């Protein structure tokens, strides 16, 4: 068996870190710890994006997920606890069924994918002078590309902003 290249070793370490943190997210009892394990999972995913040469997506992942969404989770956890302790079981009574379903979904996905011809393909080298950010920017605002989904997404964010403020507003 040939030695693994450095890239493969790095991928294995990061993937193990990400999956381990994800497991801790869904099994830990203390909810604030679960949110912090989510932060480490998201950071692992950001490193995966960097390994895939998508550095804009990697940085945006840290800014949006860790800088906003994870903070939102931590705030929500701290605002919805009657005391500082966690009580009661944290998995419901059908947890073994959930585990079986999750394992089935995982094996089903892997089985489906491995029938695809490009499953074990390796990545092509990046073309020289490749400017992913310029291309992404053009794709997002060009009428032949994806300007309509981009604008609709911004309207969606506006609707979510108004809705979230209205729902959570404390009318005293």
């Amino acid at each position, binding site marked *: 068996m040939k030695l693994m290249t450095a890239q493969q070793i790095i991928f294995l370490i990061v993937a193990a870190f990400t999956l381990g943190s994800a497991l801790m997210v*869904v099994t830990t009892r203390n909810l604030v710890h679960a949110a912090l394990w989510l932060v480490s999972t998201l950071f692992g995913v950001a490193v995966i994006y960097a390994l895939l040469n998508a550095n804009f*997506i990697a940085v945006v992942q840290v800014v*949006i997920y860790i800088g906003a*969404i994870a903070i939102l989770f931590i705030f929500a956890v701290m605002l919805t606890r009657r005391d500082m302790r966690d009580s009661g079981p944290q998995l419901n009574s059908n947890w073994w069924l959930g585990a079986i379903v999750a394992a089935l979904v995982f094996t089903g996905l892997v089985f489906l994918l491995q029938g695809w011809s490009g499953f074990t393909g390796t990545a092509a080298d990046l073309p020289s002078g490749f400017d992913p950010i310029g291309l992404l920017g053009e794709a997002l605002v060009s009428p032949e590309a994806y300007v309509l989904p981009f604008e609709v997404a911004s309207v969606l964010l506006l609707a979510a902003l108004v809705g979230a403020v209205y729902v959570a507003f404390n009318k005293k």
Partner: protein
Amino acid sequence: MVPQSWYLILAAALFGIGLFGVLTRRNAIAILLGVELMLNAVNVNLVSFWRYSDVLNMSGQVFSVIVFAVTAAEVSVGLALVISAYRRRNTVIANDMDMLKF
């Protein structure tokens, strides 16, 4: 060189773990954490498909940017709903919020 199968298996595993979280946790916020994991798995899938096919075709990255926006919207509205429900019912256990109006 990392074959694409590794990234796809990682995404599938992350999706499975998120699904386990959604199906088995009692706390509503913990369910939303599971949904987060599933959305991240989807994003990893999209970006790996972008990288391993034609890199000049930006559809994969555009799709994943739209998924970022949708995730942010969903998380904010979901958490607002959970906080509002907590104020009325004084609980966040999903099992205990079982009556529409009382």
